[in-house]
């Protein structure tokens, strides 16, 4: 399910967050929890198409393979993997769309 950060449907207004440079950044959120390879990547690719250049996509996943897969995905698609972290068995990735 693709949602904007404040829980509205994907087509609703984006949420604006302040980046560390104080510039508002559009953040979309993708919940890929419980999905296995290659679904998190396929859904992230799709979600990124709706993110404006420079915008962020937050992804939550439970597939342990996603850690390496998102690194490779960002390298191959020339997007920036801003953060990759883990809390319990949920992995969180933040991707900045560069192209």
């Amino acid at each position: 399910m693709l949602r904007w950060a404040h829980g509205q449907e994907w087509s609703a207004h984006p949420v604006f967050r302040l980046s560390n440079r104080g510039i508002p950044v559009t953040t979309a959120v993708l919940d890929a929890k419980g999905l296995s390879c290659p679904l998190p990547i396929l859904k992230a690719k799709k979600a990124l198409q709706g993110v404006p250049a420079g915008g962020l996509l937050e992804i939550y996943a439970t597939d342990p393979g996603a850690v390496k897969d998102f690194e490779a995905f960002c390298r191959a698609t020339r997007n920036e993997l801003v953060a990759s972290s883990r809390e319990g068995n949920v992995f969180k990735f933040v991707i900045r769309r560069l192209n």
Partner: protein
Amino acid sequence: MGMTPDTALLDDLIKRRLDEILPQKLEEKLAELREKKTASMTIIATKGTLDWAYPPFILASTAAALGWNVSMFFTFYGLNLLKKDISDLKVSPLGNPGMPMKMPFGPDWFRGINWNIPNVIEAGVPGFESLATVLMKQTIQNKGVASIPELRSACVEAGVNLIGCQMTVDLFGFTHGDFIPEVKEYVGAATFLPMARDADVSLFI
């Protein structure tokens, strides 16, 4: 050959200098070209069962998500994967000792049992294949693995080039109307091979 000692010396110098510089230059240039070039992959899909439908569709959809150009050539039983309705693909445990036989329901200790069912039962019990398929589909759903129709749609959406083998269409008595309209063309080996030659990755599955 009419060379003066001077030109011979010069030639020798140039040759030695080129040997020094060229390998590094070439490597840099190749890396640069590789970086710029869009990667491509061709896959030959030859199997028409539920389990063997996964590798080609997973690899094709993922490669497309990475921005690669992908072409899939469906031949023999692989042509099954292009049919309009692929929700009825089956998996057979018969003669497949590599397939774990575990139940997708019940308490953990029960799910952990690997049922070692003899071939003679798998072959002799009517509907055994259908039962195994139902259990496999339940396992796929439980584990959050994509369904085959879902993966194929992802390929279609991402613009993966789907190609059917015309010889197989004739051999098995199919018509083009049996397959999804997204199949771009029905061709033979002579069309596929040059595509495979130019691809960075080419797989036979």
